[in-house]
């Protein structure tokens, strides 16, 4: 029970940190925020690694873990890359004053 309580502490505090850190995002960044934070939710890859690498005597859990590693990696790699691609496009007006 002790472990569960500590986990709950961490969960609640992290949610509150999340609310504080993210609350003032301008609309222009809504999509990048979503796809960037989505890449972070690929953190499930950590859990998948722990399951998939647990034993050198593979069973169903191991295979499920490997599948989870693969799809979480798609989420992580694809998510961060596509967010970067999007953010590269956001440019300030240049030229108006320089021309």
């Amino acid at each position, binding site marked *: 029970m002790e472990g569960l309580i500590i986990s709950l502490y961490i969960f609640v505090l992290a949610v*509150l940190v999340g*609310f504080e850190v993210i609350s003032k995002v301008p*609309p222009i960044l809504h999509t990048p925020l979503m796809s960037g934070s989505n890449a*972070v939710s690929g953190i499930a890859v950590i*859990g998948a690694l722990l399951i998939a*690498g647990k034993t050198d005597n593979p069973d169903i859990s191991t295979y499920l873990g490997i599948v*989870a590693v693969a799809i979480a*990696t798609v989420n992580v*790699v694809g998510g961060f*890359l596509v967010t970067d691609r999007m953010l590269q496009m956001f440019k300030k007006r240049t030229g108006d004053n320089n021309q």
Partner: protein
Amino acid sequence: MSQDQAINLSYLLSAVFFIFGLKRLGSPATARSGNQLGSIGMLIAVVATLVNQEVVEYQGIIAGIVLGGLVGILLAKRIQMTAMPQLVAIFNGLGGGASALVAIAEYNRIRNLPGSIDPDVSITIMLGTFIGAVTLSGSLIAFGKLQSFLVPSNAINSILIKALNLLLFLSCIGASTLLVLETGTTYLFPALIICSLLLGILLVIPIGGADMPVVIALLNSYSGLAASATGFVLGNNMLIIAGSLVGASGLILTNLMCKAMNRSIWNVIFGAFGAETSSQGHASSEGKHAQSTTSEEAAIVLAYARSVIFVPGYGLAAAQAQRQTKELADLLQSKGVDVRYAIHPVAGRMPGHMNVLLAEAEVPYDQLYPMEDINSEFDNTDVAVVVGANDVTNPAARDATDSPIYGMPILNVDKARTIIFIKRSLSPGFAGIDNELFYHPNTRMLFADARQAIADVTGAIRELE
């Protein structure tokens, strides 16, 4: 310092990277570095996990990472910006699916161990499986709706679906309870998975296309909460922290989207907008007359305007008209016209959809104005050009108390001196209600595909010279 402590300190470091990364995503100037900080945090977390003594077998892991990495790179590089909502939906689903698989695999492992399962662990396993599976199947349906693939994209209002959802939800709770108490049969766990998947499908199927921004944001939040739940299962703080950050950001976006439509989240998920009101909406259009125009006339109006505001909507994305719009805007600007874009928060199919499309067409972001900043400007604007937006411009939201969209904040497009409304027909938007703006004395309807119409207008302006 033991290895465990080193790993936990690395997790703390990546949590700090995630928090600063998300913070920097909040401002256009720092957003890119924020995303990079996030990816570094992820790398630290993955490496720290790989050196964990519990991880002894690497072959399967390497195969999974290589395969997943390649698919991720391909998707990220190849995807068209107009298909971003679909991609985000898929990624949400994968995150949820991975979390569900972790919970399922862990349950399968500890069930085979001697002794009974600690209820702390089994409760969180059921929760992780449930949230993860709902996220997975819900996201796949959202993808199907966005892609207009197999699933109808319109809203469905069915008592049957609502009753079925309630039944499925109660079944999930019942199965979980029995599993935690370890009184049920072994078939209960697969039953929980199937009920959760079905619930995800049936929750998203009735939701109309224009409510997608809310759904995508909500599923985003779920994918984080699912990861958090697996953190509880494995007793891993890294998963709990990162998952809850995503859960929080998704909830913030969900809330913003709901506010932008003046609806509650319950109304979006269970309300199925429009299905009952469409007949009444059509009746109100009788006896009204919409004035149509041609691209040549529109060109003259635009060429002699001093200020123009473009109002993009989902139709711009559907017609892939973002580059043509930018070209027209540039041409007008070179003639000394003041050009701006008015972006409604729920225009398009995901939060910020229009901003991404226009950024892709290299529209500078300081020309893009959010609703609250530009609404007072329509009074002093010569021409408002509506490209593929509909309900977010409907003045009925302001004063027709019987309208289903009454109270929704709208762009004050009707205040502009002239309104050019590019649309293929007078068909109503997703809410199934007629747009009063079509019949406004200052509105000129340009009936055409958005991309073609804008290219024609641009051509006609060039010929004026």
